[in-house]
């Protein structure tokens, strides 16, 4: 899958309820107060619905940076 960066940014901003100015393309878990363990589940859920995908239970904790999320989405057909 080709990752639509704009769609990714919108999903992150909405899930973490942050202003656009705090978004960075290299964010990872723990960079923001909002991206804590709970925020992580909210973010992954938002990514799932934005990109129409569903991740396995075991891989959800590993998607702990936008880079990891991009890599996982790219690997999808």
């Amino acid at each position, binding site marked *: 899958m080709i990752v639509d960066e704009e769609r990714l940014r919108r999903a992150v901003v909405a899930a973490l*309820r942050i202003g656009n100015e705090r978004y960075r393309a290299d964010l990872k878990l723990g960079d923001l107060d909002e991206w804590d363990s*709970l*925020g992580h*589940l*909210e973010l992954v*859920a938002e990514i799932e*619905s934005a990109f129409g995908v569903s991740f396995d*239970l075991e891989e959800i*904790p590993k998607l702990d940076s936008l880079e990891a999320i991009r890599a996982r989405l790219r690997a999808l057909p």
Partner: protein
Amino acid sequence: MSSRELIVLGDTTLGGFARELEAQARAAGLDWSVRDAGFDSWERELFEPASATRTAEAGALGFVLSPRILEGVGAETMPGRLHAMLEVLKTLSPPRTVLCGNLFADPRVVLPLTSTGEGAHRAGALNDILAEFSAKHPWLYVLDHASLALRAGVAALNEPRYEALGALYFSPGGTRLLATLWYRALRALTKTPAKVLVVDLDNVLWKGIVGEDGADGLQMGASGAGWFYRRFQLALRELRRSGVLLAVCSKNNPAEAQAVLCEHPDCLLRPTDFAALEIGWEPKSQGLRRLAARLGLGLDSFVFIDDSAFEREEVRSALPEVAVLEFPQDPSGLVPMLEASTAFDRLRITKEDTLRAASYAAEAEREGLRGSAASPEEFYRSLQLTATLQRARPADFERLHQLIHKTNQFNLTSERLSAEAFRERLGAAHFEIYGMRVADRFGDSGLVGLALVDRGAGTHWRVENFLLSCRVIGRTVEHAFVAWLAERARAAGAQSLTFAFVATARNQVAREFLDRSGLTPSADGSGWGVELADLSGLASHYVRVMAE
């Protein structure tokens, strides 16, 4: 209004719920902050006297219990644990407003053909406990999680992967749906509901246009294109029963439109269902102004529904205080338009709410009598007024608090006591709170007056606030209430009685009452009073007063 706090407690992780609820409330301009008391905190935080929840500054508490408490070994103990929780809530000081979601069972069972329905039974038993408690203790409101689960589907609320990872029953998507229900509850705690819903007729109550299609061409029957309009009329009837006044504002030939409302066999709403009708060819904003004048209500308590974008825009620009609903593209959106609107949200329907529509109809008859009476005295006498005065009881709490917040015109101070502050006064030894019920030959107006009396040191009684619903203004019952209070104060040994008064932009009516009341302004300007040695200036001659 200052910021208010809601602390949420439950059996699962509610951090995401707290964030989402606060975000939704803030986005709608409500100044609520929402804090999660922590994972599985509902009993620990409540039963531990020194917990952060128990020691927090007065705020509201919210309980979100998941279907998981109905499962497994602990399930049988739940009724007892719920009772224990409710008992603790009664003892909290300062008193709290409590919101509690009711229960639903997770229906995804192992054996769908032979399910015992045990979970549903358990949920039902707990919900009965909650409903019964809420009926007796009006500071606890039940939020209908069970209906949300039916509407949205449990699969939309819970996602097993997230429950496994985060100990959260409500998935991020489900949390959003749940938070929307709760946001509406916070809004209803903060804002008074709209009082009047004004609807257009053609292509709103029925499909078709009276002037073009004729009465026979209109569709509002139980099948076909008319079905959505019929459902819409049923929904309007339900709103009417909840205390919303219905009114019509339509551009039509009055005789033709009236004939449809009176006689069309499929029309469920009849002219008597509407508190007032404006049918003619004037601009709609004029019609709305007339309706407001006839009903004696401010346009800021009006909601307007019209299928014409032109009319909606005309009303929006001429009367920005009126809430104009977005009209759906398709008639299937008519009922959802009402469901989505927060304008009529209330957390509880009081007896007075259910009487409101009939009471406005009685008022029209009363005005007819006033017009035909030879003098005001004859009019008052012919009404056969009775006023019943009594100490406020817990069952009256909701209505009396509603009066404090909704009464603008006859309100001596317009101080809007919070629910918590009002409950404190109800329990305070030196406060006496009286409610007044009014009835006359046209009907029972219900609980329509309130006096908050601070007995203070005993020789001087101070009425902290005195107010009367606008629907009974002009029947002299306010004079009877004052005279009765003065008698009571004197009988208790007091020497003087003072009513606090604060002029506001809207309480001119209250000021005019004071001028005619027989009370005199106090020297320091803080109120109006009377020396109880001489009560001759106070009596009201037209009202039979009963005290309970």
